């Protein structure tokens, strides 16, 4: 099953995918209403707890950034203000040189996990969604790198469109990831190339912190993250999880 959270006509609803009578992709709300994709406001598909993100978790990506693969997972955290739903807009500040998307498999925790071994880890996963975890490299400094100014900007961590049940993703370790900018394929990878796979990440993280239902692990991005400009449409796609759309906008929309 796949479920979205959408706002529609004054309330927040759970929504499932449904093809409309005219052939367009749409959603069906729990109360029976059917609507087109653009007739609802898409929110992150769950009420998110702690957001844990991985850096350099694909070997080719680490190489692209001129780092050797890390000995221990490079982990950083994100706050709630950075989250954004499907079909939203993300601001590119004027004057920056390098803002890029990162298509990532997001793992949604279902059961509380503390000191869980990798063999048992997958039983703690509720499901998956797509993440597009933007970064602005201009702001990188070498303190707790990558810091919040780079990775925790308002509306710069896109989640969705659906929370897809773990039961419907038979092998999370073999999913193709693709990013398209204005329709052109710019990033491609496969979750099989993660340095630390999902069970390893759950084992590692739960060795020092309790993971709770609703916590989200962003598992890193493969190579091919390129600069985006105002007006670009960015679509991140993962096999079986759908297509996550975002548009880059400029400062003017925010009164800057």
């Amino acid at each position, binding site marked *: 099953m796949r479920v979205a959270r959408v706002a529609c006509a004054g309330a927040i609803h759970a929504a499932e995918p449904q093809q409309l009578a005219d052939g367009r992709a749409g959603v069906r709300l729990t109360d029976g209403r059917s609507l087109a994709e653009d007739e609802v406001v898409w929110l992150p598909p769950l*009420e*998110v*707890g*702690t957001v*844990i993100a991985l850096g350099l978790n694909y070997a080719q990506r680490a190489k692209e950034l001129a780092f050797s693969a890390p000995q*221990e997972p*490079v*982990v*950083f*955290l*994100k*706050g*709630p*203000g*950075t989250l954004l739903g499907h079909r939203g807009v993300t601001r590119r500040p004027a004057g920056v040189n390098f803002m890029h998307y990162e298509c990532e498999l997001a793992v949604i925790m279902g059961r509380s996990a*503390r000191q869980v071994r990798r063999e048992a880890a997958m039983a703690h996963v509720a499901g998956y969604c797509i993440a597009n975890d933007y970064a602005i490299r201009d*702001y990188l*400094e*070498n*303190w*707790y*790198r*990558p*810091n*919040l*100014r780079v990775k*925790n*900007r*308002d509306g710069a961590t896109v989640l969705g469109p659906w929370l897809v049940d773990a039961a419907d993703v038979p092998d999370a370790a073999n999913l193709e990831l693709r990013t398209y900018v204005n329709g052109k394929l710019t990033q491609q990878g496969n979750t099989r190339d993660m340095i630390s796979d999902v069970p390893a990440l759950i084992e590692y993280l739960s060795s*020092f*912190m*309790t*993971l*709770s239902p*609703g916590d989200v692990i962003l598992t890193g991005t493969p190579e091919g993250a390129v600069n985006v400009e105002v007006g670009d449409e960015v679509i991140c796609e993962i096999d079986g999880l759908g297509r996550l759309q975002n548009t880059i906008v400029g400062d003017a929309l925010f009164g*800057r």
Partner: protein
Amino acid sequence: MPLHPCIAVTMDVPPYRLSGTVYGALLNHRTALQALGDAAHRPPYNGPPQAPVLYIKPRNTLASDGEPVCVPPGIAELEIGASLGVVIGRPSCRLSAGQALEHVTGYLIVNDVSVPHLPYYRPSIPFKARDGFCPLSARVVPCSAIADPNALTIRVYIDGELKQTATTSQLVRPVAQLLAEVTEFMTLSPGDVLAVGVASPAPRVRAGQRARIEIDGLGRLETPVVAGAA
């Protein structure tokens, strides 16, 4: 995300409860930057921070006054990171330093516990985000009761003995300026807490000891230290 119901923090001013999100500012106390000395100018850092360097104390770290913190197996000591915590009252985006304090609803004591670590090049989640590593004092003191957040003395006692005296007058970025620079790139929400900076050297504790942090006007925060299960 709501604060875990077992975290007991009384708050009699809007928004009447914490959001559960706690941020901290690295190296925002002059003594902390001074302790690094020339190293801050050398690789891997190549210079002191240009913008506020923040970290997050996630919900699993939050703990109440009096709740014990565990020393993980194989670790000898923990650092007691005594900091003033600023509690946000109103949505805060792009504040000017002049208006920033109007968005503060109150203050509390934050014990930003860490496993001692260097360098600060990569985010130090395994050292700072362990369960119970962020005790908060029992009550948010309204901002009306604190005349100047940049003139508060912080004292840390270990087993009753005074181990550290610091003051918020030594912040690299004073409270209003820090809020202005942070909200330039991210919005803070009502009930969010920002720990404004830990002085160096932070006192260390072993299992069996007891830490107490006092900040002028904010009361005290007690944290017993126990050995963690293997």
